[in-house]
């Protein structure tokens, strides 16, 4: 079980969190033309990298904040966690 440092609550066990996927995916702006390909990429396509991955986690059984985690998918090492407005 991973130990994840919520930027607001500190170190907590993984069972307090929900995984939210790739944090680098950006939703296309509202009210703009979006090509089929761009929309498909946003809705369906995700990278599955071996190594460092910037991802979203939700402290669902805690402060209910979404935040970013830089995690190595091969070793499970968590390099850094940060608030949404921050970048690694």
């Amino acid at each position: 079980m991973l130990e994840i440092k919520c930027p607001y609550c500190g170190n907590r066990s993984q069972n307090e969190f929900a995984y939210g996927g790739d944090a680098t995916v950006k939703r296309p702006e509202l009210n703009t033309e979006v090509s089929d390909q761009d929309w498909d990429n946003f809705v369906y396509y995700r990278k599955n990298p071996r190594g460092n991955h910037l991802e979203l986690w939700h402290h669902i059984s805690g402060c209910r904040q979404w935040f970013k985690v830089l995690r190595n998918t091969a070793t499970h090492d968590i390099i850094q966690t940060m608030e949404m407005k921050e970048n690694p």
Partner: protein
Amino acid sequence: MSQEFRIASGGLIDRSKEISFIFNGKKYNGYKGDTLASALLANGVHLIGRSFKYHRPRGIIAAGVEDANGKVQLYKDNITEPNVNVTEVELVEGLRIESQNCWPSVNFDVGGINNFLNRFFPAGFYYKTFMWPKSFWYHVYEPFIRKAAGMGKASLDPDPDRYEHQYEHCDILVVGSGPSGIASALSAAKNGARVILAEDKARFGGSLLTDNVTIGNKNGDEWVEDSISELKSMPNVIIKKRSQVFGYYDHNMLVMFERCKDHLNNPEPYTPRQRLWYIRAKQVLISTGSIERPLIFANNDRPGIMLASSAREYLKVYGVLPGKKPIIFTNNDTAYETAIEFKAHGIDTVILDTRKSSDAGVVIEAKNIGIEIKFNHGIANTAGYKKVKSATIGELTESKDGYKNLTTIPCDSIFVSGNWTPTVHLASQSGNKLKYESETDTFLPDQSRQKETVIGSANGSFTLKESLADGFNKGYQLSDEITKNGREISVPISDEKDFGSHDKFWCMPVADNKHYKRFVDFQNDVAVSDIQLAVREGFRSIEHVKRYTTLGMATDQGKTSNLNGLQLVSDLEKKIVPEVGHTTFRPPYTSVTIGTIIGREVGKNYRATRKSPIHEWHEKNNAVFVDAGLWLRPRYYKRGNETLQEAAKREALNVRQNVGICDVTSLGKIDIKGKDSAEFLNRVYTNAFLKLPVGKARYGVMLREDGMVFDDGTTTRIAENHFHMTTTTAQAANVLSHLEYYLQVVWPELDVNVVSTTEQWAGAAIAGPKSRELLQRLFPEEDMSNEGFPFMGFKELKFKNTVARVFRISFSGELAFEMNVMSDYGEEMWNEIISQGEDFGIQPYGTEALSTLRIEMGHVAGSEIDGRTIAYDLSLEGMLSQKKDFIGKRSLNRKAFTENNREKIVGVVPIDKKTSIPEGSYLVENAKASFPNPKLGHVSASCWSVEYDNPFSLAIIKDGKNKKGEKLFAVSPLKNKIIPVEIVSQHYVDPEGKRVRS
């Protein structure tokens, strides 16, 4: 009954407390402090069970978790447990054990014939033997295997015991309480670290309980006792025996089970049987010691043949002689200590040593006290069916592939030692890539992956001096990184016997070309010949050899066999062991009872139960409850002998004719505040929310980004920047996460806050033509007319001493209101409505009537909003705004979503107006078509329409738009029904929606 093999005094057992137990119907005695294994051996019982494949008689080979054979079916009080290891069960009153894997009895076992037919049971026999003829499988092979083989029997009753879970954090977790473990715990604890010390056995001390050593000026066992009491007195130390750390997971999370109850003769009520500890440690010191390896020789599996160190443990800890006429067979010096210990108790042994000589101190000591030693000797064969009675021994030839001469000597036991295997499982689980150390023929930890440090013999330090120094130093260094106290204690001087190096020869030749079995894995009956066969047949990877031969795959996980198997494969392939590599060490290290893993989450505690504040009233009024997510909701209120259908019909009819009341507390409620709230809702919902007036509710539909309908509900504008959202009961938590995601991740610039208020409000739906009159009675001052309180209106009204939120919204399709008060007033509100409603014939209605009402009205719910339907499918396309963008809108022009014959919701009525259509039925054009019969869609919900008094269902079918009036068939293969049906409008009752607006 006398304990013939118990010595007169000595051992750590309590001889004042005699305890009896029953093994295979016969009564035996032991003492408090015994394990079942030591008590059986004290009575001279070696034959415990039969081996898995050949049903050969097998006995105890070790004294701890590494034992491969001592598996029994355990009975105590009303419970039974299979595959229990006799070496791990402590003796208490009332134990009954039975051999498993034998039929009809351990002494006469029909399956024993497999032993004589063993040419038919080679490696991979599962894959070869039972393949043909195919028809034999069900009637011959499988029943035979199930009856004659197979391990113990699991109980079919619920587990009566209680199991608990505990979370703990510490600076340093020390696993194993041998010399290095205690040393490191002491030095870390004295340096101020928070330490947990865990020992799997019932006594602390590990090898110090059996080795003749001194530490400081104390004997080893005295040093253990003093150190443990010192540790116990320290507030920063948790010290646990009977506690097996069995898994090393990510981020230094280790899992341990503690045996709390089974060893107690009179446990307090509510004592948990076991406790599962989740330990998050900053540093882990693995001092798990090492396990002695057996030597491999012909017929090396007979009862009475055990590990030399285990024989010494039985003698020193339990005062039991596993044999009175033992042969000691070794390729190293450590077994000499066993011979010396037995000699001290008047038992003469013969030592057979595969080496040509040894000048280690312990060997000289053995010689000096007159123990007979035969160097350069091996065991060529053994005899004795249910217990070993003799060994055929001989001097090894120069090339060690045969014997110069053979003689047979009598014995009642053989104690073997093939050197030591460090217990590196936890380090390997942590991710440590092991390295091979060719001097000792062992895998040792290499680079740490996490915060694990391996010390003592688990790390290849086989002398006490090294182990102690390692323990004290690592304990200090690691603790000081955390505490920075700098309090170091000095390493005490120790004295131990002198041991030399081992012989790399461990697999004895078989004399005279005989096909005797030489076992490597005792529990799974894997012999040298099986491994040879696997390699001959082309299996190269050690992982494949393992699976083909089942080497190391039994419940003991090959603790005594893996390394011997590896060495054998590398010898056969003329490779060195590191090239062959090792199989993966996976948790759990030892078997864990399922109950321990589950803990308290069983039965009604399997998950939380949520009850509305009106729950007690429902109970008093004969509600029959149904699970709705975590909530318990009244399904119907039973009157007399009513069935579910009768009650639902009565309750629904009363709503249509008079007025009903339904507890809707479980509906999700989300409070939304902030100056951008309206803009946010306008993006979340498919329909417009920007211009919703204050004091008005609006029905809304929300989509996922892939265009599927996510949830629906009403949202009310309480004030300019304040909204009250309702969700379905099932999706309440998901909708909140969804809103938080968009506010925090996608549009953080919006000034909006959301919070769940589901539990803050108790809710009652008041529905039916007489609901307005009832509302008027409840709020006499208020204008409740259609003009004064129109459909989708909202009022905040004074109710008794609190405030009620009243909405004019309807799920039943009738004129209806929903009233919310703060939860604490819920029951008061309910009682008031019931008492004021009496004059109008009010009746409570449950979820079954609620379903009936919504189905015949054609309102969609969870069975239609199932994550696979878009707005069009549910006839909600009118809710899709053309003027604005919203979540999921861009997906709606996908080709499949815009096809002409897209699925759509319809109503379904059986032609005979009598036969109810099972939910989940398929709709087909031709009931008699051959498979696969093209399916038009499925029935999502069914009810008995109270308006028309006949069955009515909703279905989602292909080209539903153009199917009205068509005659189809509803087919339910599960219920074995074919029902002719007609497709009608989904809105079976009041299609214009006049009633809700009346």
